[in-house]
C-alpha cells in the first residue's frame, strides 16, 4: 500500500497545477439507498456493500469494465485524519467476534478490500489514506497526473451507526479541551464563531433561514438525498426558526444529519477519458490547507484568516478569478461554515459580512446565484458527496431538475472545515 507521498498542494506559492486540465472526473456512482444508519446486522447495507454498489454504478457511468481499473484511492473511514467511523461514535462497542472481527467492509472500507471483493485484476496502485471527499479527489487527481495509475476508482464511504456522533466517553480532559469539552464537541465553538460574526457585522441567526431552507429544497431534487428518500416534504422558514439550540447561535437545523451511504468516482487522464462514456469534467486544480487555532478555541479572526489563505491558494493554483466561477459549492456540514467560504472566495462579489444579504437575495436554482445547487449536507444528509457530484453534473448538463439556468462551465467546491480544507476547481474545458 502506498502512503508516504507528498501530494498536497498546501505551501504557498503553489503555482498553477502541473496537471491542470490533464486529469478528469469521468464517472460518478452512488449507492441506491441512503439510510439513517447501519443496523449492525444487515450485511447488504454495510458501508462495504454500499461502496461496491456505488463503484459498479460509477464504472457503468464511465463505461468501463473492472479490467480497466488500475488504481484505487479511498478514504477508508470517510473521516478526517484517517479515523475509522467506529472510533468516532460513542459509546464504543465491539462488533463481531473473531474470525469476523475486522471492521473492513463494515464501517471501514480499504482499497485492498474493494480490490478483492470486486475482483479488480489490474490494480497497481492502492491508497486507503485519503481524508474527506475533497482531499480524496485531490489525492486521486495527483496520483493520476503523476502516472501512478491511469484509471482510478475513488470510493467515498460515509456512514452512521448506533450511538452518538463524537460522544466522548472520557471523564477527563486535558489541555485546552478542559475548557471546551464541557460545552460539547465542536458545537459550542461554532456557535461562538457565529456569534462573533453576528456582532461584528450586525446580523443574526434568523438571517441564515433563506440559505438553509433553499438547500433543503435543492436537496429534495437529488435522488440520493436522505430527505428525498425518507422525508420528502418541504422544510420551511418556520421549521428553521423553531429549531432547538445545540449551542447558542447554532441550531439543530444548522447541523447535518449523519447518514449511511457510499459514493464512487472515476478519475482518469483527459486522454484516456476520450474513450469513455461521459463528457469529461476537467480538474483544473486541487489545493489543501490545515490550521490550528491561535488560542484555546477557534475564533472568527482565525476562521476568516484560514479561509482567506485557502481561497487565495485556490485561485493561485487554478488561475481562476472569482468572476470565472459559475457553480460554487462551499461546504455546510455546519450551515454556518458556508458564509466563511463564500466571503473568502468572493463569489458573486460577496465580501466579508455580506453573506446574509446574499442569502436574502435570489439564491434559487433558477436564479442568478444558485449557491449549493445540490443542496449541500443540509439538504441531502451527511454524505458530503453532493459537493462533487452536483458540480460535476451541472458542468455536464445532466443535473436534471437541479440544472441551473446560468452558464455552467467552471465550478469550485470546497470543504470540509475552515480549519482543514481542500478546494477543487472543475471545468468543461481543459484550458
Amino acid at each position, binding site marked *: 500500500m502506498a502512503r508516504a507521498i507528498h501530494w498536497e498542494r498546501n505551501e504557498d506559492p503553489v503555482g498553477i497545477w502541473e496537471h491542470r486540465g490533464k486529469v478528469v472526473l469521468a464517472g460518478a456512482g452512488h449507492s441506491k439507498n441512503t439510510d*439513517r444508519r447501519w443496523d449492525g446486522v444487515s450485511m447488504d447495507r454495510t458501508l462495504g456493500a454500499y461502496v461496491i454498489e456505488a463503484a459498479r454504478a460509477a464504472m457503468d457511468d464511465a463505461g468501463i469494465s473492472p479490467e480497466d481499473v488500475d488504481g484505487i484511492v479511498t478514504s477508508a473511514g470517510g473521516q478526517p485524519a484517517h479515523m475509522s467511523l467506529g472510533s468516532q461514535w460513542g459509546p464504543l462497542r465491539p462488533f463481531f467476534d473473531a474470525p469476523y472481527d475486522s471492521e473492513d467492509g463494515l464501517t471501514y472500507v480499504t482499497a485492498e478490500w474493494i480490490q478483492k471483493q470486486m475482483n479488480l485484476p489490474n490494480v497497481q496502485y492502492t491508497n486507503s489514506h485519503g481524508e474527506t471527499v475533497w482531499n480524496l479527489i485531490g489525492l486521486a487527481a495527483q496520483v493520476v497526473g503523476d502516472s501512478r495509475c491511469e484509471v482510478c476508482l475513488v470510493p467515498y464511504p460515509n456512514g452512521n451507526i448506533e450511538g452518538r456522533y463524537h460522544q466522548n466517553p472520557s471523564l477527563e480532559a486535558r489541555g485546552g479541551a478542559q475548557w471546551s469539552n464541557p460545552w460539547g464537541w465542536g458545537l459550542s465553538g461554532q456557535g461562538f464563531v457565529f456569534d462573533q460574526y453576528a456582532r461584528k457585522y450586525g446580523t443574526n441567526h434568523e438571517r441564515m433561514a433563506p440559505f438553509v431552507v433553499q438547500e433543503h429544497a435543492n436537496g429534495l431534487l437529488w435522488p440520493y438525498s436522505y430527505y428525498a428518500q425518507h422525508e420528502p*416534504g418541504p*422544510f*420551511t422558514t418556520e*421549521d428553521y426558526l*423553531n*429549531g*432547538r*439550540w445545540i449551542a447558542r447561535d447554532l441550531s*439543530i437545523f444548522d447541523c447535518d444529519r449523519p447518514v449511511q451511504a457510499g459514493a464512487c468516482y472515476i478519475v482518469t487522464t483527459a486522454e484516456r477519458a476520450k474513450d469513455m462514456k461521459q463528457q469529461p469534467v476537467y480538474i483544473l486544480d486541487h489545493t489543501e490547507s490545515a490550521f490550528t487555532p491561535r488560542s484555546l478555541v477557534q475564533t472568527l479572526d482565525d476562521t476568516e484568516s484560514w479561509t482567506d489563505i485557502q481561497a487565495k491558494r485556490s485561485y493561485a493554483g487554478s488561475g481562476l478569478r472569482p468572476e470565472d466561477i459559475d457553480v460554487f459549492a462551499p461546504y455546510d456540514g455546519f450551515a454556518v461554515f458556508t458564509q466563511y467560504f463564500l466571503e473568502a472566495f468572493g463569489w458573486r462579489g460577496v465580501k466579508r459580512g455580506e453573506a446574509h444579504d446574499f442569502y436574502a437575495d435570489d439564491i434559487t436554482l433558477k436564479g442568478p446565484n444558485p449557491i449549493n445547487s445540490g443542496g449541500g449536507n443540509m439538504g441531502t444528509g451527511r454524505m458530503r458527496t453532493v459537493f462533487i457530484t452536483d458540480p460535476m453534473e451541472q458542468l455536464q448538463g445532466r443535473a436534471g431538475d437541479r440544472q441551473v439556468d446560468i452558464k455552467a462551465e467552471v465550478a469550485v467546491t470546497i470543504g470540509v472545515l475552515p480549519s482543514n480544507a481542500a478546494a477543487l476547481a472543475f471545468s468543461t474545458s481543459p484550458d
Partner: protein
Amino acid sequence: MAILLSFDIDGTLELGDPPGGVTIDMVRKAIDMGFIVGSCSDRPLSSQRRMWASLDIEPDFVASKHQLGLVRAQFDDADAYYHMGDRDTDESAAKENDFGFWWHTEAELEPWLELVNSD
C-alpha cells in the same frame, strides 16, 4: 381532569426513527379517552404535522423539544403535564418546564392510564 401528554417521536413512537415502543393505537386510545395529546420532538414542525396528518390524527399541539414551556402556556388550564422520550434532552426539557417525565420504555406501558384509573 385534563391531562396533557407530550410524545417525543424518534425512539419513542413506533413510527419514529428508530422505532419506539409506543404504538399509534396507544395514542389514539389516549385521544379517545380525552387526554390532550401532541408531539414535542426535534423533528421540524412541518414534519411533525405531516406525520400526524398521515395518521389522520389532529394533534392538540406540535412543538420543538425546547418548547415544552410554550405548550404548557398554551394549555395552562390542564391539571397535569407529562412528556415522554428516549433522550436526556427529553428528561431535561420536562424537568425545566415542570412536566412529569416517562422514559420511552416506561411509556410503552401506558402509565397515563393509571392516572385516570386512580382519579
